């Protein structure tokens, strides 16, 4: 939890009592049927390595000869081979990219500040204390306590703020003998607040794949719990997040967010970027497979990062912190199969600071148009409240 935001909002509670922020459950309007999943790619994804502008006359001078394994998208751009599993989505019009985009963050290229700004959704640092997804929730018709989920161990400041959100990490799994479950409920009876939280924890833990009640021997139970706490790295962690997200979105929830790390590819990018992309690919495939076709048609998954990376490779076959990058969108609600960009070019004079891909559009504009299309939000709510200081500009037509 972003405790700063929490505290602040608690302290200023009186002055905003009249604001809808403080009573999120009481909104008028029908609950939406659309779903939004926001994945934060922490570390700075190399947009040029993921969606490769093979058609750019300066590509070879910038990145070397095109990799033959890359998958052609539209004759100009080609996709990193590690995302091969997503090609069926591309063909079905359920995958898009926005290229040469960035947040308003410039020049210092710090992960710390870049992620703060990506999640705050403001123009400058320290302008707002809460996250843009939380502010979006305040405008969502029919929002209730189960509408939004922050998933995983990441505190996800993007969802922090005045509107309550649910938080759960599938890693916080429980496996207890039926007897221990009964006794745990019993000891909690002395404390209503703790009892309520634990009861909800049992429900959540039961719904995320494996049941809490465990009938095996104590030894078997121990090894199973050890396996759960051991899961932070590797494949299953991200898939676990995606499965839990799908589970919630199949019920009453409409908005979910989690993060995937591993994008800070300063060295040996070929290997390291592929690894991170495989995680992302698995997450998207898992979401599609776990959601019913009906819900997938109403779902948009969007993956954003704090900044792109340098246009050229560095001395260790990696890339350093840059500016413009790419954003990925997937889902049945998309008007997809497109790379949406006002392409700036890779010639040295076209680069930002003569080193980074030049951002030609604010990534927040795309996010704003997505939420406008999915949740019918007012333009002014997006430009003034959710992304203060943003000009939405022309509709990029992201959705069907």
């Amino acid at each position, binding site marked *: 939890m972003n*405790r700063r935001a929490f505290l602040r909002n608690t302290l200023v509670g009186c002055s905003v009592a009249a604001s809808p922020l403080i009573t999120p459950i009481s909104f008028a309007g029908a609950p939406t049927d659309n779903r939004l999943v926001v994945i934060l790619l922490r570390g700075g994804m190399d947009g040029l390595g993921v969606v490769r502008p093979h058609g750019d006359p300066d590509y070879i001078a910038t990145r070397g000869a095109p990799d033959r394994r890359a998958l052609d998208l539209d004759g100009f751009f080609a996709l990193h081979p590690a995302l091969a599993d997503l090609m069926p989505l591309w063909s079905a019009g359920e995958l898009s990219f926005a290229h040469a985009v960035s947040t308003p963050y410039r020049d210092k290229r710090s992960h710390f500040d870049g992620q703060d700004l990506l999640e705050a959704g403001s123009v400058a640092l320290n302008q707002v204390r809460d996250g843009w997804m939380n502010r979006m929730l305040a405008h969502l018709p029919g929002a209730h306590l189960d509408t939004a989920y922050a998933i995983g161990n990441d505190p996800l400041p993007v969802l922090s703020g005045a509107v309550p959100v649910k938080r759960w990490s599938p890693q916080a799994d429980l496996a207890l003998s039926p007897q*221990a479950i009964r006794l745990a409920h019993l000891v909690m009876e002395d404390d209503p607040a703790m009892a309520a939280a634990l009861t909800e924890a049992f429900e959540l833990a039961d719904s995320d794949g494996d049941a809490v009640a465990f009938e095996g021997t104590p030894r078997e139970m121990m090894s199973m719990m050890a396996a759960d706490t051991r899961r932070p790295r590797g494949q299953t962690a991200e898939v676990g997040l995606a499965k839990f997200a799908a589970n919630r979105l199949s019920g009453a929830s409409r908005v979910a967010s989690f993060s995937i790390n591993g994008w800070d590819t300063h060295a040996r990018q070929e290997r390291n970027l592929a690894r991170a992309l495989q995680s992302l690919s698995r997450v998207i495939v898992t979401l599609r497979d776990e959601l019913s076709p009906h819900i997938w048609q109403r779902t948009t998954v969007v993956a954003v990062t704090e900044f792109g990376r340098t246009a050229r490779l560095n001395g260790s076959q990696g890339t350093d912190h840059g500016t413009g990058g790419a954003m990925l969108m997937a889902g049945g609600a998309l008007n997809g199969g497109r790379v949406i960009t006002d392409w700036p070019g890779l010639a040295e004079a076209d680069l930002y600071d003569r080193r980074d891909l030049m951002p030609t559009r604010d990534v927040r504009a795309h996010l704003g148009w997505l939420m406008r299309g999915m949740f019918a939000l007012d333009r002014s709510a997006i430009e003034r409240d959710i992304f203060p200081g943003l000009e939405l500009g022309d509709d990029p037509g992201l959705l069907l």
Partner: protein
Amino acid sequence: MSFDPVLADIRFGCGLSPTVSSPQSVTQMLENLRGPDLIAAQYPIETFPVFRERVIERTALRRDLKANRGTAKSDDIRQALARNNRAGRKGAVSWLAAHLQRRTRTADGFRERLEFFWGDHFTATGKAGVLQWAGSPYTESAIRPFVSGKFENLLISAATHPLMVHYLDQAVSAGPNSKRAKRKPGQFGLNENLAREILELHTLGVDGPYTQDDVRQLAELLAGLTHSVKEGRKFRKDFAEPGAETVLGVSYGSPNRGFEDIEAALRDLARHPATARHLSTKLAVHFVSDTPDPMLIQAMTAAYRDTDGDLTAVYRAMLTHPSAWAPAPGNIKLPFDYITSACRALDVMPRALRMKEKTMRRRIYTPMQLMGHQWQRPDGPDGLEELDAAWITPQGMAARLQWAIAIPQLLRPKLPDPREFLTTALGPMPPERVAFAAEAAESRADGIGLILASPAFQRR
């Protein structure tokens, strides 16, 4: 409602221990606190000046890397940088072990709690490279030696510490009319981050009587406060803003600007009545209750003001006030207090707490993160949430129950009999339901886990 040894350990210390006896009076608690720091000598943690050698090494390597970019040598330098970072990370694992050992074995638990409280009040962390692992050396050097003296000395120590200066961007802040800003216009300017947090978080509090103008003037006064890798805290005259600055109506700034001007302002802020009230309230909320008795806050605030911020006097006012001894249950323990008090009740051997990085991750770091506290990775300069509601969440409760049942047997293979552990952990009057559960559990691990997960253990 007056002093009680059991409550003294549970509410103001590190929990009950089967081998270390509880303090017998408030006087003894405060004498321990003012006496020699025995447990720190027994389980040492690297001091910041020693840690700085790691930063010096990193800085030299980064310089080498820049000079050798693109050459064959650069791979070796990169590897040396990775080694430098890894050594810091492994150091941090061993310092976490020392924190656990101290809390398991100390007879002076109040000191550990105060170090944690003030370390969180003055939250600071490194943002890159080996400096990310400086959390424990920072509290060891800048916080711990100052927790029982005058608040102004603690404030000066922490707020001007190189790690804080780095964390809150003070190092790049130059007065708008400084020599530096004039020489490189557009490249250097004022950064208000530290000034704002000193007023808002460290001293007066967010409701305190300051304005944006005070923030700006304090920032101008602070301009020049920076650090150098080799010397630590440093004042750079070319960053300083010429002329006097007025903060809360008082003018500061000698013609020959230096630390003294900054320290003069910090001392006045430390002695301000709003600071007295802000800190007394925060201490009372942390140690006693989310909704502390106003009379308790008043007594602490008065003690603070009478002594110009002598922290021991404030603690005495708290510990001798009847409402500090209101019967349990009080606040919920923070995740670190929860885990360490369980280790203490289980009397985990110090060597069992010296874990390899992977083991530490599995048993301590990750569970604590699931409980809502990422160790030494703060979300912001305001540190951890004080109110119970932030911690009593489904995920937090699940993580605590999971830890309580799964981890104790790994830390102490021969678990105690749950029926005996009941009074070891909870004192002579365990709640009936917990006693029943301890008896009815199917295994020792379940029995121990249910006692540790019970509200009576989780609250203080």
